[in-house]
């Protein structure tokens, strides 16, 4: 009797096995069909339809990783973040090291502006496992994270990520150019300039890199270097108005700067007198536009006092050969330019050049030392 039961059990087992296999194949085919239908819906801009199809596909292939991920992404993209998160968390619990899942979770956290979670999931994605094209996916995730940090004005974190990223970038000009742009957006102009220079080592005629390097150098107050980069950029891209404007300002600064190296004393004195005269005019015009009486000492502004100091200094300008007088005169010029910019707004032309010199006198000092780098 037991033998009969065993034989019957074996036969039934084989029959059911065949049945299950056949049904399993049908279910897989059905799931694939529904999934592809969902992808088509998604590509056609009908995410709701895609969600329905992905869900239906999952009914027949419940544990399919790709289907679940697609559903979660579709849910996220339609703003159903809670639903997406639960799916993604479930996937994450199953494969915490998976790059795609972590990236999706990172994007979700970024959408919710959760800085810590975003950093956590993006880092998991960057250092996680990718089924294919791992290097590209990792770099893209990294760039995406930095973009997010910049949007959140989290500059220190963005700079930290960029420094690490730049060190690991393969020698490809596009990637270094992207990193350099991001450095510039993160206001880390030193690293930005280094990255632009790296790009230029790969491709000397890269207009974007030249313009970027010019902007970075300009921001660092290295106007001589900026001038040279921007001149090259303007030659390669004459339509680049921003580079042209910066080039003009650089030219003005370099022409007006009395502290440039290798200037004759005559030229230096001429520049100081020109700057001093310009500052006086700026002071008068600013006071006039704001209806400030420069002769009244009790006026609620520093301009009258500055005017008085300007007048006193004017008499000393005859003794410009004395270093102290030159420095004192330029200090007063810088003070006037800064104060008038506060009172009357940003200046233009020579006043703008003087203001920039005032803001970054040290940068001007270094300009000469950068010349060789720029020429290289």
């Amino acid at each position, binding site marked *: 009797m037991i033998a009969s039961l065993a034989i019957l059990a074996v036969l039934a087992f084989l029959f059911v096995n065949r049945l299950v296999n056949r049904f399993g194949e049908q279910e897989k085919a059905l799931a694939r069909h529904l999934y592809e239908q969902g992808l088509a819906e998604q590509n056609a801009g009908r995410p709701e339809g895609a969600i329905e199809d992905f869900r239906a596909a999952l009914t027949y292939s419940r544990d399919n990783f790709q289907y679940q991920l697609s559903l979660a992404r579709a849910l996220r993209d339609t703003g159903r973040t809670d639903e997406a998160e*639960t799916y993604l968390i479930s996937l994450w619990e199953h494969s915490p090291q998976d790059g795609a899942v972590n990236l999706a979770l990172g994007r979700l956290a970024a959408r919710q502006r959760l800085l810590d979670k975003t950093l956590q999931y993006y880092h998991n994605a960057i250092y996680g496992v990718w089924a294919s094209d791992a290097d590209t996916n990792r770099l893209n995730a990294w760039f995406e994270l930095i973009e997010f940090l910049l949007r959140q004005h989290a500059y220190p974190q963005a700079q930290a990520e960029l420094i690490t990223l730049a060190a690991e970038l393969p020698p490809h000009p596009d990637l270094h150019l992207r990193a350099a742009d991001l450095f510039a957006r993160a206001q880390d102009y030193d690293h930005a300039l280094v990255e632009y220079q790296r790009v230029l080592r790969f491709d000397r005629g890269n207009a974007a890199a030249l313009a970027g390097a010019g902007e970075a150098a300009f921001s660092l107050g290295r106007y001589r270097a900026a001038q040279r980069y921007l001149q090259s950029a303007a030659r390669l891209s004459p339509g680049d108005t921003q580079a042209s404007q910066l080039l003009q300002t650089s030219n003005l600064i370099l022409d007006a700067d009395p502290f440039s190296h290798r200037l004759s004393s005559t030229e230096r004195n001429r520049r100081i007198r020109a700057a001093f005269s310009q500052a006086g005019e700026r002071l008068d015009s600013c006071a006039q536009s704001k209806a400030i009486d420069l002769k009244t000492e009790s006026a609620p502004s520093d301009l009258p006092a500055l005017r008085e100091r300007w007048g006193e200094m004017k008499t000393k300008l005859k003794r410009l050969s004395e270093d102290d007088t030159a420095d004192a005169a330029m200090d007063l010029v810088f003070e006037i330019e800064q104060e008038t910019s506060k009172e009357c707004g940003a200046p233009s032309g020579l006043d703008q050049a003087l203001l920039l010199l005032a803001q970054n006198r040290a940068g001007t000092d270094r300009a000469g030392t950068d010349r060789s780098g720029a020429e290289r």
Partner: protein
Amino acid sequence: MNHTSPLSPESSSVAPPHVSAATPRRVRRFSMTATSREEQFFLLLAMFIGLFSGLAVVCFRLAIDWTRIGLLGPAPQAHNLRVLFVPALVGLLVAVLVVHVFPQVRGSGVNQTKAALYIFNGYIPFRTAIGKFITAALAIGSGYSLGPEDPSLQIGASLASALGRRMEFSREKLRLLAPVGAAAGLAAAFNAPISAVLFVIEEVIGRWSAGILGSVVLSAISSVVVVRWFLGAQPLFRIPSLTVARPTELIAYAVLGLIGGIAAVIFAKSIAYFRSRLRSWPKWTQYLQPSLAGLAIGLIGYLGAPQVLGAGYQYMDQAMHDQFTWKMLAILAGLKIVATTLSFVTGTPGGMFAPTLFIGAMLGGAVGGVERLFYPHLTGSTGTYALVGMGVLFAGFLRAPMTSVFMVLEVSGNYSIIVPVIVANAVAYVISRSLQPTPIFDLLTRQDGLDLPSLEQQREENILRVEDAMQPPTGPVLNADETVREANESVQQSAADVFLVRLSPTGWSSVTRDLLKRLVSEGKGEMTLGSALPTERLPYLHPDYPLEMALRYVYQTPLVPVVSRADFRKLEGVISSEAVLNKYRVVSREDES
């Protein structure tokens, strides 16, 4: 020590009542060997029952899925005419099959299996298994709001019964086979062996019985192994991460238990009311009732809630993953109650397990959603509440509290959720019991004109114990080291005729006044009682033994000693046949009054 307590280990070696003391040892050994072989064969058969039940349930699930895909399409959606009309049309076919071909397959199958066990000596026609398979697959596959678990239970029981009959088992064994098959079928359907075993004990057998527990467990495990072999080991639901951070959050789960308990009562009362009303309608309406219910269910699906069609496991899964808003969850819970009531009361074959879980999951999710709306600091996710909600409805509606707890644990595989589950289930159970004293399965059997035992009633019964009927000894307690003469003198002051003798080092015997006198007259007055009395010892009882156990002994000996569990020589009292009968009379009078 020579104990002869009926439950003491030694008692198991005492010859069974039907084997006399004079039976030769080799005959006794043969008898025991034969019993042991029969037990082993029964266990082996339980494994085969599990295997066949598992295979049947796999086919049943495939049949349901095939039917659903074929009739409703791969992804049933609202505003699809198929969804509107298919349930009604299939309802007509099912009604014809139920009325003319398989009249035994109406309803869920749990009560039918229970009736087979208690009324029909374990007999369930094999035709019932076939009928249940076909009609339930059609009904569930076409969208009736019913589940595959209870039919699987009946299919398993029917297979077991057929196998037992084929083996020409005795009536007693045949009766035991039905729950073995039922557990196998349910375990396979739910992929949860512990819950299946507990449910069969709580609802089918109706009492804890060690006799078949091994077979039930073995068959359940075998069937689950088979199902996992074919359909994978993954649980019914993908359980999200579950946490309960603060004990104060248990209040939130208690509220869920309260609401779930009320919902369970509404569900149970609706089924009981409408089922009895529909059964009173003319017989010809039985052809139309399932169809009309199907039309109503189809309309619900067509108008925007296709989730209520069928068992709905994928939607429970989605509810656990925050896929619905709390409003949608609440609507689905309400609509599922309506759809399941309509499906069930019209006699459409199918189970209530899955719908109960569905309603619980939706209700749990909805309650969790609302609670989190007002108390955002609650850490439990919607999935946690949905999972606990399943257990809540199970405890409140099916009134199987232990199964409900283990079911959630088994489904989730997460023991950190046990406290919320117990709290919520207990509240739901208490609410349900107070508002609906008769459990749903008992209600249904009574509507069918049957009276089957239920574990819930047994739990409530006041068990009489030996201590309730025992009395202090009327005469002196003699010691075995006393002389016969001393003993005879000490009993002179007593009016009793029988006296207990405390043996040394342990054990009890008794002696009559007449025997003492006779021994003295025979010149044995200086002998100790221990050496003068026959060696036969009295059985003894402990105060906490059930009173019915005393009945086994009080007719063999006029006085049975009741001794302390800590010291067998310490007499707590004595019990006699008269005392036992008096106690039963008193209790009977109290019950009548």
